[in-house]
């Protein structure tokens, strides 16, 4: 919208535009706080006492008690929760029970690897989805469109590990051996330097994402193409290219943007399974490991990080949908 041209907005344009966003952020933060509490309580109720776990089965009760005090486990749950949150705000995510090192160390590595994977996937996914969707809409109800609809339905339906396993069978183990089945990236190295390790996991994320988004693009474009203003543009004798790019796409993209951010959020959720499948060293596979090891501080950290990222993209989706 052009600035200041709607009379109602003139009084307090900035406030009226910021208020809904602010309230959304506030609501989101409260939601995140609730989520963190949930994570905390869930992790606390993991079977087995942390102090017992650290010291092993042969520890003396005195030692266990001492460690409990040391770890603050004898304090009320409420205090423990506040301390945990406070620690996070200071960058202290606790100490991993499995490795004995600060969780933040492995968290940084995992976060970088996962972020790279997601970013690469999204960078390919979004433009591809746009092109595929527009093309399918142009050939609406034709052969190309029907093939697209069937393919996208299939890839939307099957779980990521199935897509991934089929990709592995084709490109890594069974048909050809072009790419590694397992994504080995040494800790400390950037995944960008190991493109062959990125290709399969990224593709596994990209395929369902493209198939989902391009469907939305297709429907949005078709909806716009059947509006009266497009008919008006046709009857004005404008060229098909001008109609598509100037009249149709700007209107079609608006409803897709929030969906795209939502897909970004989904991607983060889906990353867990994909990373596990390819043993890709990101937060997702680290989380599965942590759960297997009952590594409480690590579980809390990873879950909170993934949930925050998920929340962040949901927030963007909401803000964009509101515009």
């Amino acid at each position: 919208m052009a600035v200041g041209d709607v009379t109602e907005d003139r009084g307090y344009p900035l406030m009226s535009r910021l208020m809904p966003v602010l309230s959304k952020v506030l609501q989101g933060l409260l939601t995140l706080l609730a989520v963190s509490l949930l994570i905390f309580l869930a992790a606390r109720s993991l079977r087995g006492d942390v102090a017992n776990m650290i010291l092993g089965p042969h520890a003396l009760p005195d030692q266990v008690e001492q460690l409990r005090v040391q770890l603050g486990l004898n304090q009320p749950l409420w205090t423990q929760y506040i301390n945990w949150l406070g620690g996070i705000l200071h960058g202290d995510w606790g100490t991993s029970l499995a490795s004995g090192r600060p969780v933040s160390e492995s968290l940084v590595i995992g976060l970088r690897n996962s972020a790279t994977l997601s970013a690469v996937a999204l960078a390919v996914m979004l433009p591809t989805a746009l092109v595929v969707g527009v093309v399918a809409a142009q050939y609406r109800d034709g052969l190309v469109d029907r093939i697209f609809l069937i393919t996208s339905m299939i890839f939307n339906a099957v779980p990521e590990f199935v897509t991934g396993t089929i990709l592995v069978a084709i490109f890594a183990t069974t048909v050809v051996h072009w790419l590694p089945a397992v994504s080995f990236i040494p800790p400390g190295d950037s995944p960008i330097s190991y493109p062959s390790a990125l290709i399969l996991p990224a593709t596994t994320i990209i395929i369902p994402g493209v198939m989902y988004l391009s469907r939305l693009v297709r429907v949005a474009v078709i909806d716009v193409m059947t509006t009266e203003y497009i008919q008006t543009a046709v009857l004005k004798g404008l060229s098909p290219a001008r109609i598509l790019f100037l009249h149709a796409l700007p209107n079609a993209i608006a409803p897709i943007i929030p969906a795209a951010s939502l897909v970004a959020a989904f991607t983060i959720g889906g990353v867990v399974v994909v990373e596990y499948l390819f043993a890709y060293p990101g937060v997702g596979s680290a989380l599965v490991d942590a759960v297997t090891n009952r590594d409480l501080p690590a579980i809390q950290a990873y879950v909170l990080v993934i949930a925050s990222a998920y929340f962040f993209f949901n927030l963007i989706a909401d803000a964009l949908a509101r515009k």
Partner: protein
Amino acid sequence: MTTTTDASLELPRPRKARATGLWRLWSSAQVRLGVTMLVGITILVIIAPFLAPHDMAAPVGRPYAPPSPEAWLGTDNLGRDVLSRVMSGGIYLAWMAPASALIAVSLGAAIALIAAYYGGWTDLILMRCMDVLLAFPGILLTLLCVSIFGPAPPLLVTLVVLTLMPGVARVIRGAALPLLRQEYVLWAKTVGTPGRVIITRELLPNVSSPLLVELGLRLSWSVAILSSMSFIGYGIQPPAADWGLMVAENGNGLGIQPYAVLAPILMIVLYTIGGALIAEGSARIIARTEGEA
């Protein structure tokens, strides 16, 4: 005023086959194919354990043996018959997935209709709860809870329900809100019809088609989530046979004995596509009839 009577002697439109309600969805070939696939797989999965050529738990040869007359699809990582395990491996999914989808769609729809009809605080509180659930990636919730309570099937079903329900509630609320402005709902209000009756009599039948779309979609997602959980080791536990688990168990042998992975994958694909076909076909019919109206 005899003219009125004359004028109204309109002939009703020629009667078409009862093309209303859920029956019209049956006219979609995709819906019919989807239903057939699901029913077929369910029957197969239930009777298959009795037809399986081998004991699915006992080794019949060396690990990762290729297909042979004894083991048509070869053997798995422990030398067990792949065919027998695939035939037995859907029994959990066959009840857990439909149960999760049905419960999620029913609860989601109930929440959505109540929130939409009563509006105000009811709406705000219910939908905010759904938002909190949505704000938590389903896979995390499932991982967390399964690691705490162990992978008991009822817990898995509950978790899948919690994961899917908010989405259903959002969609159905979206479908119900425009209905509230429809004049037949307003009319029901003018004569003081209680909210409970308006919800069940006026709203529910008019969201039945989107509900079927949701059911198909969520069934397919239930299968995906449940098999993914098995795949990462937090669903059905060995030595039980389960398709997702089989993919994980035999992943290392993909290069030498692909059938041990591809056979269960095929079953998962068929199962998920069955649900997706129902969703897709129904959505198309809805779009078409709305286009006509």
